[in-house]
Every structure is written in C-alpha cells, then in structure tokens.
C-alpha cells in the first residue's frame, strides 16, 4: 500500500528544509546547533523545520549523550518516489489508450 505522499511533498516544498535534508543525507546525523551553523538560519528555525521533516517521516531524532541528533529516514522518500512512478505509469497507460482510440479507423 502506498501512503499519501502529501506531507513529504509539502515538507520538501521549503528550500531551507531541502537544505537541512541534503545536509543530513550527505553529512550524516547532526544536531540542530550544528545544522544552524552550516545554514543561514537560526537554531530555533532549524528546530521548527526538523519538526516538519519528522512529522513527514523524513527524519528522526535520537539522543546521543547530551546531544539530540537528527538523521534521514529513507522510507518516506522511497515511498513518495514509488508513488510518483506509479502515477507516471498510469499516465503512460492512459496515453497509449488515447492513441489506440484516436487511431481507430
């Protein structure tokens, strides 16, 4: 079953959240403090963006000593990509059906 990908797309609609996500994907788990140092936004803003990413299932937080580290979860993203592929395939089928109907003598 493919779940509604709306929250994933909405989460990815914001450029800062995309930056946070790519930073976590390329650099591995990081704290909000470290992320804020790399990005042109406050730590508080980073925390809010991480909450949206968490809610969409794109990241998760875990405690590591005194720090809270955030990491990327691939499942939601894979689900959204699979959903897009399914939609694209449906359109291919429909376009092919339109062509057959239009080309009927």
């Amino acid at each position: 079953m493919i779940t509604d990908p709306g929250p994933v797309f909405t989460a990815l609609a914001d450029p800062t959240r995309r930056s946070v996500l790519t930073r976590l994907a390329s650099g591995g788990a990081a704290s909000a403090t470290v992320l804020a140092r790399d990005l042109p936004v406050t730590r508080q803003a980073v925390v809010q963006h991480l909450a949206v990413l968490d809610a969409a299932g794109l990241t998760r937080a875990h405690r590591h000593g005194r720090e809270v580290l955030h990491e990327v979860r691939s499942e939601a993203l894979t689900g959204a990509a699979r959903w897009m592929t399914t939609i694209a395939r449906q359109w291919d089928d429909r376009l092919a059906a339109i062509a057959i109907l239009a080309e009927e003598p």
Partner: protein
Amino acid sequence: MEDSIVREIVVAARPERVWEVLTTPEYLPRWFTADTAEIDLRPGGSLVLKWAEHGTGLARVERVEEPSLFSFRWALEPGVEPTPGEETLVEFTLAEKGDGTLLRVVESGFSTLDRPAEKQEWHRERNVDGWRQVLEAIGGHFQE
C-alpha cells in the same frame, strides 16, 4: 524542475481527432478505464468518473481551448470535491507533429497536497523548485 509528472506520446491522428477522444463522454471512460464518465466541457464544468471498485472521481474542468489545450483539477481521494490541498492539476496539450499529434500530459501540484497541520503553511510555500533534485539526490544516496 517542478512537483510534476510529464509524459507524452505521438499519436497518428489529427489533433481534432485526439481532442474528441480526450474530451467526449463516449471516449473518456475508455481511456480512463472508468465505467462511466460525465463531462460539462467548459471552464468550471464538472467531470465525474465512476469506477465500480474505486468509487467516484471528481474533477473540475479548468481550461478548454479546442483542439490544443484541455485541463482539469481532480481530487486525490474518491468522492471528494477538488479543492486546494486535495487536488492536482492535469493539463493536456496537443500540437501538430507531421501528420499526427504530439500529446503531452502534465500532472502537477503534489507539493500542495495537504494535511491539517500544514494547512497554513502551504499557502506560503508554493516555491517547489528543486524539490525533485533533492528527492533524487537523497533517493540515490540510499539506493544500495
């Protein structure tokens, strides 16, 4: 790149003929594999597709420019009216190509599909440029 799916096909028929297949209740259910279709072919008109197993798909016609452009907004969930946050935009363009027609479909607006917690947010955040690169970049990162 936007939050959209773009697919196209070359049809060996004139745009006028492809338009007929695209927009008339005689043909609509056949390519949509629906049981029945009703369409009020004018901007703001309704398009209703019925499937015995999936329920009823509701859409609202957006643009009708015979024979080159036909678009509608449709709801993600069966039985739900298309409204912002629940709908995507489907746009067909038809262009002459030799003796045939280049038929393109673009479905867009996935980033505006909504959840209550995000209701206020998406109105402000319509800038979706680049989200797909992120999807691909991060997707690739995890593909083993």
